Every structure is written in structure tokens, then in C-alpha cells.
């Protein structure tokens, strides 16, 4: 029986109507702004032919609309469904800006909630592509409660399945809490924005002229607020990067992340690592050079690159297996810890802990950023977040101290006594309560004041300090470092250490949750 017979008339008519709704005219509305349509985004994201849409034919809520008009369209402005991404089951939704501005009404919100609940039940990741004008004014409080339901679901799933948001258009007002609550946020430059209160209200209340871009564009969120983790110049690059990114993550908090075939081209022993740290302790180097020589070739995927660049976070692979990396970056602010980098690091560590991703810490930190700014803004509290996150994490944790490791910062960066599993140090490491200049000034204050040639004496004392105290061999001999290693062997050592830790299990304390400083 073919589809043109009368039994199938209703079926085919509806299919035609849906096709017409998504015709080229509609696509042009998005294309003329340099944006893709929701359907195009979905096909780019999911493996060809694997996407199954749900609730394609729902219509907006049947409740009486007291104010304004509501279009009778299919889908209510959002496409939801499931499909495979690189062969793995993933749930997702894509808001459709061409239908009532992608605004969120009751049915729109219900669709999203449905897919969220399914993702949680199946233990699969969920991706949301946001492109929406915000709550649907015509539907009043129903829209608002729709949002609340979505947020509640995100929170229920938080730490159980990976949740990723991609901002591909406006996300204003209440809508911004979705990205805030999810694990990672991708954002497209120049054609998307996020803000709680838009430029119009800013103008009204504060009489200040500001564009959407200036208030909450990708630059702002990537560099200044840290809300967006990954920024790309256009939509296709964003989606392709997202697919690459997903391959680092497990589907849920019980499984391990996928293993990618390692091409075996990364040498386990690399002498270039010996040349990276300069002889002059005040000269900087790029810690990403170290990372790229240790992990599988081309496998380092950095997160939040533009925010708090003095701490580098990201995922990488060792022999095809995912690890999370936290590293001080000496060439920015000398790698000190400050408020922004502490919160950046803490959130990343907690994500890795929730999802069983082992952590590698590369340390070269001279301390915390001094100054009234930091102190008055609560560096005490924020620095403690990093410490809390490390200490609480039960995933395998390895530290390699590359150069400086002074004082409180040394403790905070995953020291062994915080529960770190293995601590290695390069011969260039300096582990001490404080740096040589400060220490010498305090311990030999009198001698320096009385000396005829204080500069010479200080130079000599600093040299002695480096020899006797601030070298890694002392820590090694006292058992606070497991081994001082030849930098060339770093990859080999780390792989074998993680391998020993692959079955690590630590029971978490019996409590609802700790009281982490916030």
C-alpha cells in the first residue's frame, strides 16, 4: 500500500505542512544574519541520519491568550530529540529563532524538560543550542515557570550527565541561567549575547548607552566574566569543536570516557622538555609547550583560554585516555593564583571529579597575587575554593612541580598532604615557604643591615638558600615528593602513575554535601 492512498492522506499532508514551515524563506531569515537555522545546526551536530526528532508537531499551548497574538506553528520554536555524535547517544535541543523569536512558552519549555528527563534516565549527555528572545511575554507566568522547570532539571542532572550549552543567538533575562548552570558553555562570536538585563533597560534605568555586544557579547563572556568557556568565530567551527570536545567526556558519572585510538607517534621520552624552563628564575616560559610535549600529539583541548590565563585548564589524552589538566602559566602574571584563576580551577576540578576524569597538575606558582584589590575582593575565600576542590576530589591526582612552589600556593596546588596521589618534581623545582629574596630578607635582616656590601651578601645568601632549602631533593628525602624526575621522562612517568591509579576508589564522607566557600 503506497503512501498516496487515503489512509495516509493525513500523514502526508502534515509532513508537507511541516516541510513548508521550514522552507527556504525561513532559512533566509537566519542566513541573512550570518546564522544557521535550528535544523541546520542539528544536522551539523549529529551524525548523518541519526537524529530522531520528538514532538515535532506540537503546537503552542491552548490556553486563552489575553494579550498579544500567538502563531499557530508546529514545534513551538524548538527542535528536540536524540541522535548519535561520533557514534554515541546524545540528547539535544535547538531553539528556533525564526518561530516567534525562539521565545520560550509553556509547550516549548515542556519539550525541553522532556528531553532533559530522558537524558537523565538514559545516562547520556545533553546539549542545548540556545537562540532565543527569552520568555514569551504573551504567555505570562507560564513561561517563567517553564524556565524554572528547565533549571530544576539541569540541577537534578548536574554531576550525573554532562550538560553543555551552545549560545548561538540572544540569551537574555531568565534564559541565561541555563548556561550558567550547565557544565560548559560554547559561544559564537559576534552573533550571540548573554545578559541578565538588556541594553534597553540599562538605558532606561542608568541612562547609559551600551550595545548588546559590549554588554554581553562573546568577547565579554570569554575574557571578562568567564561565563563562556569556548568562543569561536562562526557557527560551523563552534559545532565541529563541540563534537571534538564531547569525545573527551564520559556519557555519565559511572562510565569512563571514550578511548580514542592513539596514533603512537608521541614519544614517551622527549629531551626537549629539559630545555623549556629557562635558567633565569625570573624568565617566563609557556606551560602549554610542556603540556603539548607530555600528552598525546594534538590532543590538548583548552577550556576558558581567555579567562584567567594565568591558570591553564583543559582536557587531553594519554595513550588515548582522557585526563584533565590544571597548570600555572608562568608567562601571565608569573603564574600567580588570584580570584579568577582560583574559581576557574575549582570549577574545572569539580567537573573532573564528578565525572571520574583523572587530574594532572603542573605547578610553577610563586604565590598569590598581592594587593588591596585581591584582598578586599576576598582572595582568602576564593583561593580556598581551589583548595577545597582539590582536597574533595577522589579521582586519581598527580602533580608535577616544574619550578616554583612557594608557601600557601604550594599547599593549594594539589600537594601530597591534600590527598594528591603522586607528586613528582623536576630538578628545577623550588619548594619552600617563600621565595629566596623574601626569605633571605627576613632570616638575615640584621646581617644584611650591618654588611658593608649588602648586594653581594644577598646574592651569596640567595645562592645558599637555593642550594640548601629551596631544592626538590629535600622534599624528596622527607617524603613529600615521590620522585625527582628527569623532565625528558615526564610522559612515561605520568602514564605509569595513572595506570597504577586506574582502580582508585575512595569512599566519600557520609554527608549531604560539604560547605564549600562560595
Amino acid at each position, binding site marked *: 500500500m503506497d503512501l498516496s492512498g487515503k489512509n495516509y492522506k493525513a500523514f502526508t499532508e502534515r509532513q508537507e505542512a511541516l516541510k513548508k514551515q521550514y522552507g527556504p524563506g525561513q532559512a533566509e531569515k537566519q542566513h541573512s544574519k550570518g546564522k544557521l537555522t535550528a535544523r541546520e545546526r542539528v544536522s551539523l551536530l549529529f*551524525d548523518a541520519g541519526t537524529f530522531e526528532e520528538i514532538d515535532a508537531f506540537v503546537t503552542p499551548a491552548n490556553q486563552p491568550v489575553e494579550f498579544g497574538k500567538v502563531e499557530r506553528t508546529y514545534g513551538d520554536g524548538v527542535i528536540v530529540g536524540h541522535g548519535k555524535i*561520533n*557514534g*554515541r547517544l546524545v540528547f539535544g535541543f535547538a531553539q528556533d529563532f525564526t518561530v516567534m523569536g525562539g521565545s520560550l512558552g509553556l509547550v516549548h519549555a515542556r519539550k525541553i524538560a522532556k528531553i532533559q528527563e530522558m537524558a537523565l534516565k538514559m545516562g547520556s549527555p545533553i546539549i542545548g543550542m540556545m537562540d532565543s528572545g527569552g520568555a514569551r511575554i504573551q504567555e505570562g507566568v507560564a513561561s517563567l515557570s517553564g524556565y524554572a522547570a528547565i533549571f530544576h532539571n539541569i540541577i537534578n542532572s548536574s554531576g550525573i550527565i554532562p550538560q553543555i550549552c551552545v549560545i548561538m543567538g540572544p540569551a537574555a533575562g531568565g534564559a541565561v541561567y541555563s548556561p550558567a548552570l550547565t557544565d560548559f558553555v560554547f559561544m559564537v562570536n559576534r552573533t550571540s549575547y548573554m545578559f541578565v538585563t538588556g541594553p534597553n533597560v540599562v538605558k532606561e534605568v542608568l541612562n547609559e548607552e551600551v550595545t548588546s555586544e559590549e554588554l554581553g557579547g562573546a568577547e565579554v563572556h570569554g575574557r571578562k566574566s568567564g561565563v563562556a568557556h569556548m568562543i569561536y568565530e562562526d557557527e560551523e*567551527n563552534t559545532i*565541529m*569543536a563541540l*563534537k*571534538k570536545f564531547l*569525545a573527551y567526556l*564520559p*556519557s555519565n*558519572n*559511572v*562510565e*569512563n*570516557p*571514550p*578511548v*580514542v*585510538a592513539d596514533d603512537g607517534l608521541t614519544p614517551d621520552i622527549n629531551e626537549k622538555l629539559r630545555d623549556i624552563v629557562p635558567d633565569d628564575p625570573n624568565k617566563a616560559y609557556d606551560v602549554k609547550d610542556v603540556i603539548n610535549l607530555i600528552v598525546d600529539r*594534538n590532543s590538548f583541548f583548552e577550556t576558558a583560554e581567555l579567562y584567567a590565563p594565568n591558570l591553564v585548564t583543559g582536557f587531553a589524552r594519554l595513550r*588515548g*585516555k582522557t585526563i584533565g589538566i590544571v597548570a600555572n602559566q608562568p608567562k601571565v602574571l608569573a603564574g600567580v593564583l588570584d580570584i579568577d584563576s582560583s574559581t576557574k580551577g575549582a570549577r574545572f576540578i569539580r567537573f573532573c571529579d564528578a565525572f*571520574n576524569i583523572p587530574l594532572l597538575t603542573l605547578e610553577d606558582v610563586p604565590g598569590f597575587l598581592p594587593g588591596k584589590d585581591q584582598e578586599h575582593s576576598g582572595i582568602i575565600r576564593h583561593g580556598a575554593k581551589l583548595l577545597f576542590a582539590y582536597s574533595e576530589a577522589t579521582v586519581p591526582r598527580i602533580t608535577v612541580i616544574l619550578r616554583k612552589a612557594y608557601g600557601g600556593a604550594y599547599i593549594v596546588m594539589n600537594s601530597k598532604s591534600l590527598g594528591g596521589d603522586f607528586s613528582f618534581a623536576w630538578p628545577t623545582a623550588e619548594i619552600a615557604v617563600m621565595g629566596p629574596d623574601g626569605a633571605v630578607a627576613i632570616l638575615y635582616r640584621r646581617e644584611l643591615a650591618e654588611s658593608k656590601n649588602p648586594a653581594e651578601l644577598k646574592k651569596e645568601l640567595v645562592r645558599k638558600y637555593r642550594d640548601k632549602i629551596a631544592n626538590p631533593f629535600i622534599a624528596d628525602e622527607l617524603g613529600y615528593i615521590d620522585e625527582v624526575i628527569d623532565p625528558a621522562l615526564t610522559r612515561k612517568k605520568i602514564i605509569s602513575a595513572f595506570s597504577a591509579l*586506574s*582502580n582508585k*576508589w575512595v*569512599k*566519600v564522607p557520609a554527608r549531604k554535601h560539604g560547605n564549600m566557600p562560595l
Partner: protein
Amino acid sequence: MKIRRIFIANRGEIAVRIISTARKMNIETVVVRNATEPDALYVSLADIVFDNTEDPADIPVFLNIDRLIDIALETSCDAVHPGYGFLAENAYFAQKCIENNIVFIGPSPDAIYKMGNKTIARELAMKQGIPMAMGSQGNIGNEEEAAAMAKNIGYPVIIKAASGGGGRGMRIVRKPEEMEKMFLIASKEAEKAFNDPSVFIEKYIENPKHIEFQILGDTAGNIVHLGERECSIQRKHQKLLEEAPSSALDDDLRNLMGSMAVRIAAAVGYYSAGTVEFLLDSERNFYFMEMNTRIQVEHPVTEMITGIDLIEQQIRIARGETLAFGQKDVRIQGWSIECRINAEDVQAGFAPDPGKIEKLILPSDSFVRADTGVRSGSSIVSSYDSMIAKLIITGTDRKDAIRKCKLALDRVWIKGVKTTLPFFRMLVRNPKFIDGSFTTAFIEKDLDKYYLNSEYEEMLAAWLATKLFEDENLIGKSPAADNGNNSDMSPWLLNKRINQF
């Protein structure tokens, strides 16, 4: 006298060059090993290496006269070769060597001093009747004198430092109103570069060719010239390409200019190798500029067309031998071109591009001679010059030499640093270069780009960029079949994870 062991007070390419000839003559060589380049090529080729890696002194060893003398004495050297640059034209250094009974392979300290001071050199040239650009007899004391002199000579004029060259302390003045400012700038610059603010003034010759003559003299007073070198391809007074002979000279002009060069050398009782520089204008008038009292970077092109080893000649002359040939025995055959391959970024205005040379393959054709001081793995360090190699190509005539140049340039393989190769590849195809009509203004005025844009090379680069993009983004990294390596997960772990909730 016998020279058994030579101390080479230099590094890089010229040190390697001197070692090569010394070895041929069965003479031992001593070099200095420094902390900046402990694994340099010249260090591994010399017979004896003096380890100076722990040197605490502030000045580089090659400028440290006392240290160099100490090293020469400690290593029992009979002679010192200063190479070019560093202390090669420092009369005081030459004097000190002689005082310490070390033969200085170069001219007398007196000749070095006289020719090193441009005002004295001009005076001598005047006395000898050598054509020169009209100019001041001595140094100019102040702007008023300068203005008066310039009015006499006629603008444009050029202000030059008395104690040095290379473009420093040099300013062209085209209008009387600029004189005061330029005079001050020039003398300040001269003071900074040469510790001597003295300047003099000359008529500025527009767009000349730079022609220099190679001189060889012995201690018995015999002096010959070995023909000219064409060095007009310069950028900011730094030579990039030199050739021998020059297409601008015929035999008559060559003989005339050569005899002038010999005459000025004789005026200071010159011996060893030296170079007399002239400017040649578009009407075949030549003007003496200065004399360089050392072996020059571009000496190989003269060696290739005369068959004479100049370093060998220097050593023989230093030993007291007289020249084994006279002027009429000097025969010029063929045409030679030298390209200076430096580690510079042609696309960034020849900015130095220091770094490590990962791969270095130089052509081995019979018509190519490659003089180099580096090898694969060497670092080009910013504290020294950026020279990688001198590519010297010899042909039967100029057309043949240029043709062979094209081949040789395509056979050079360097990876790790950017080089001036694209510049030479463009130059040997440039019509003005090919017809020989270029002047010293060529690079600054006649070239709008320093390299050729090969369309299909760009396309190949585009292909590669596209391939990288495709590999990184469009070819999915397929996770292993068991999407999570979960069947390998130990039951211990799985059990614990599930039961923790």
C-alpha cells in the same frame, strides 16, 4: 719565519674558512669556545680549542684585546688571524700582537690606523691624485663650517663619520635648511658608534655603483690588484649579493681603477690583503671612498675568478714571503656571484629570525661553493650575525652564472629559521639585475617587493592548510568500538561507583 700555529680571533664562517686553508698548508689552528655557542661548527674543526665558557668578563671575548693576547700566548701561537669584523681593523690590537711577538696576519698597525681614519685616508688619496668626491680636507668642527663647505661643493652632500662606516654617522643633506639638524644627528651617531664625533663632508653622488678592488701586497713593497667586485646590491649599507667581475667595467676602466687602488695602497706601504672601495657614477667617473684593511666577507668571488686562495696569500705574506706573481700574471676567468643566505625574514623587512637550524642541505654541484659556519642543529644567536651560508656560484660568463644561480638557489634546503632565499630567487629573475643596470639605490628604489609570489606555491600552501583543517575538524575521531572502555572496567570499580549513591 715559520708559522706553525695560528690563533683565529673570530668565529662562524670565517673561522671555518681560515681553518680550511691552514689545514691545507699543514698549519695548526687554535679557536675559542664560548658559552653562547659551545657546539659551533668551527669549534669541532679546529686543532686546539681554548675553553672560554666560564668567562666572567662583560665584553665578548672577540672584542677583548687583553684576553685574546693571553689566549694566544697561552696556546703558544705564532700568529693571529683576526678574520673580519670584531678587532680586524683595530690598529691597537695589531700593535699589541706585534709587541707580544705574535705575527698579525694583516697589514701594519700604521696602515690600519691611517686607512681607518677617513679624513687621513682622503688626505692621502688627494696627495696621490686619486679621483675623489669633492669634500672637506679635514674634519668639520661645527654646523657653520659644514654649511659653508656644502655651499662650496654644491648640494646634495653627504656627512660621514671619520672613524667608521656601515651607514652609521652618515647623513645625506639635500637642502641647506637641513644641514644644521643633520650635522648634529650625524656627529651624535658617530660618537655613539665609534667613540668619536668627528665627521667630514663630501659631494653626494646619486645612485652610484659600488665597485671595490681586491689588493694584495707583500712586505717587500710589491702590490697587485686582483680585479674588481660589484657590490651595489645593498640594503641599508649591508651587502646582500656580490659579483666578480662587474658588467660596468671594460678592460681600460679596470686597469685605470686598479692602478689607482694599487697607488693608494702603496701610499701607506700596504701589505697583506685589503680592499679599495670606489663609487662609479653613470658617466663612468669613479671616486675613491675608503680602504678596508682586512679580508672581506665577499672575498670568495675574487678567488673563484682568479684561482688565488686569498687566505693562503695572507699567511704567506705574514711569513715574509714575496708575492709569487706580478700584475700581468693575474688572469680573470669566468664570472662568480655570491649570495649571502642569512636568517632573516624577508617578509618582515629583513628582520633577523634567530632560532635553531633543524635541517641544512647545501647544493653539491660543481659550480657551487658553499662557505658556512653552521650545520644542522646549530643555533643562530641574536648576539652574533645572522649568516647561515655564502653561496658562491661560478659560471663561464654572467649569463651562465645567473642561470646556475637559479639552479643552486632551488637546491638549498633550510628548515628551522626563515631565510633570505626568497629574495635571491626573485633577484636573479629581475630584469634590472639581469641587464646589470642596477645601482646602490636598486633595493630601496627599484624593488617594491622583496620576494616573488608564486601562484602555485601559494596554492600548495592553501591545500596544506585545508588538509589540516579537514583532519582536525571533519574527520571524526572515532572512539573505540566499546565506547567507554567500560567492559574493561574492573568489577571492583564499577561496583563501588554504582553503590556509592
